[in-house]
């Protein structure tokens, strides 16, 4: 049995993908593994939303993709952050931090009562 994992909040997947790709080009499976590992298996990426999300980000122009060889020499589609993607990442990250900060403050205030 694996530890119970959380489903991703709506909209956060885009941010996580962008962040993950900020570290370097990566294929879809790699992205899902990376998010899972980095979050210590707390966050599980639903494959069903991963590929549509990648497609969406590519269409938006925030990432682009090219085919390359993976570690084990299989052909894989590697995604890479674009210029506009980097800017989008900064914007989204800032927005996320503002929001989580706000949520955290509200929760903390509740604790003091």
């Amino acid at each position, binding site marked *: 049995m694996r530890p119970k994992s959380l489903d991703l909040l709506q909209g956060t997947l885009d941010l996580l993908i962008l962040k993950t790709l900020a570290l370097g080009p990566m*294929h*879809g*499976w*790699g992205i*899902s*593994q990376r998010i899972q590992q980095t979050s210590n298996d707390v966050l599980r990426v*639903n*494959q*069903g939303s991963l*590929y*549509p*999300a*990648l*497609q*969406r980000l*590519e*269409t938006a*122009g925030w990432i682009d993709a090219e*085919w390359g060889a*993976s570690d*084990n020499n*299989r*052909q*894989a*589609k590697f995604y890479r952050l674009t210029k506009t993607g980097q800017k989008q990442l900064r914007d989204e990250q800032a927005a996320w931090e503002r929001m989580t900060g706000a949520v955290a403050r509200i929760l903390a205030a509740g604790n003091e009562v």
Partner: protein
Amino acid sequence: MWRRLRALFGGARLDRELDREVQFHLDMEADKHVRRGVPSDEARARALRDFGPMTKHVEETRDARGLPWVGDFARDLHYAARTLAKSPGYAAVAILTLGLGIGANAAIFSVVNGVLFTPLPYANGDRLLLINHAAPLANQRNFGVSIKELYDYREQLTSFDGLVEFHQMSFDLLRRGEPDRVATGVVSHNFFDVLGIQPILGRTFSDADDDDGADAVLVLGHEYWQTRFGADPGIIGQVFQMNDRPHTVVGVLPDVPHYPNRVDLYMPTSACPFRSAADRQIVANRRAFSGLQVFGLVKAGVPFSAAATEVATAGQRFQQDFPEIYRADTGFQARTSPVLTALTATARPVLWLLLATTALVLLLACANVANLTLARMLRRDREFAMRVALGAGRGRLIRQLLAESTLLATVAGIAGLVLAWTTLGVLTRFVGRFTQRTDAIGLDPWVLAFTMTVAIGSGIVFGLVPALSTKSDVLPSLKQGSLGSGVSAGRRRLQDALVVAQVALSVVMLVGASLLLASVWRLQRVDSGYRADRVLAATVFGNFSKYPDAQSQLALYEPLVERLNQLPGVDAAAITNAVPLVGANPNETPFDIEGRTPDAARRPRGDVRVVSPRYFEALNIPVLLGRAFSPLDHREAARVVMINQAMVRYWDGGEPVGARLSVDNGTTWWTVVGVVGDVRQFGLERAAVPQAFIPLAQMPNGLGGRVILRTAGDPAAVTRAMVDAVHALDPDMPVEDVQTLEEVRSESLAAPRLTALLLSIFAGLAMAVTLTGVTGVIAASVSERTREFGVRMALGATRGWVLRMVLRQGLVLIACGLALGLVAAAVFSKALSAYLFDTPPRDPFVLAAVALVFVVAGLLACLGPARRATGVDPLVALKAE
């Protein structure tokens, strides 16, 4: 945007990429499991399971790519083509049914489009009004304008830039000695300027051509120039003898349709001997030389309605100024109609009727194909359930079904265009009986656009009905091993409703067609008052310049009649201007009865005809009172006249024979010597009008020379002898329009007969489609209830009982449709009254016949499936479960 476009057009490649990407993902995932010690099969399965519903992800990924709808549509079409290729039977029937419906619409629409919608091919076509006069109370529609009236209009009307006249004559044009009978348009010198026609050679007429002493000039029509002069470019300036005058050709017209009549060539009014003579009499007789067609070019910016009002007002002024000519009891009106409307006046109602019929045919075809599709869906329930289980939404399913129906409809549309294209020739000839605008009929871009719109529209209609009956609850279908039974109660009702609608529609059409057929049948059998069998008629028109006056005409016609009467095989010959059903309108001549005070407002009127003595004998028209004409009623004898029965009413019960009447305000008096039976002279559907007949010898001029021969045997056999007899007297006299009166009579019914025939074809088509629909629905229901029949028969039901049960089911559907259809027909058939002769729109005989035909045909349609039901082997049916 570029990405989206690339996504759209590179769809297939991107799909392959996505496939590989997902494969890679699954491989990596499986590898991961293997590394943890899971056997490879199991690892693969686990990877798949973790990935989740594949189709759904793939589709969502595609959707994320951009313009998903269009991409989906293309893919749906592709899939639809594959699916349909797997059921060619269904596809073929659907395409055939729809193709017939669409083809009928495309064909009729191409006619409607060409005749009614295409602008006139003249520069000023959209500004032309036709002025016509009518006297509805005297039963006269659209009689022409007189010269004096035209001049008054020119003086009074301010809404027009020009008013021009047209009338048609037949003249002999002598071409290198050969007489050529030419249809001649006699027109104002600015006729072509007002219509907006430029010549391709030379010039048209000018002001100077009307000057006194000007040379007579001609403008040739394109077709005449081509066929008779081999399109000789040197024709301009050539001189031909016509009416004993030299006429010079000054121009050739382009290949445009001639309105209002097709003629060979044109001359200005000053060159026509009759028209120019009449011009000099107009002061004496206001109505002299009526019968002009007058075209007006409405000033730019002036609405048609304003011009129409002005013309109507001028007509009222005529009535106020000359009450004895424009009598109140005739309801005289000066009216206008756009030239296009006037030229299509007879065709318009027929075309709309046909278009309405074909629209019904198409509606019915849609219902039929919708039904087929429903039946097919019954078999596809499991496929759809599977697709829903794999993640397709209901919306996707509906889109998929619509793609299939649209694809079918598009193919059917193309088939329909081919059908329209092949039938257009026949249809054009048919429409040629109603209008001269047939040249504008063709499959132009409008027709293509209309057809494809109709096709795709019907695809959506017949696709949407079954598509909306899909359910998102798919479990029952998946669970069921065999063809679903209970699932489809709603759909079954829908199918029933569609069949009932089809039956109702075809009943309406069948009633319409039957009414027209009944009407034509009655027209064909109507007592016309004369015997048309064994009678030959021909036109022998003496050249006006050769026979200018009464004396010379009499000198030609009297010996001619004499000769014709002596021909072997001829029982009676006559010459007249009164061949029944030839010639359009009665001439309503006012007359006075001796001894009665003429009442200016209610003067008796009659259609006056000139006949040689044996006319009534030749046509077998009975003499009811008094006597017929004889050779004793010669030129110097006392003036005599015969009247028909319809005329007798003017005597208010008094004795007409022996009374005297005058058609020239009492200058000469004619004694009525006999009364003859009424003849439907101006159309089999029109009741006889009051007529008076004057012997040839006493009024020889103004005689349009038509000969009539009653023969002992086959009338056509004496043609040669007749032509020889004419040429023995005058070798230059053309003999034209040689026809038997039966042909004339049949010809006069050709238009209503063809209309009825076309409508019957459509109705028959509709009925055939409907009956296949009935068979299909009953058959589907039988195969669905096979087990039930098995059980019932196992429990003791007889085959007869099963047969009756199935037949009853079919009969209920037909009865419902029939009832609906008859009610609808009773409501809508009123619209047909204008087309019907002596046939009430709710003719109970017709309604009963249609009902009977439908019940019988419907029962036959159910018989096949019903017999299949009785053939069910209870054992087999039960074991199958």
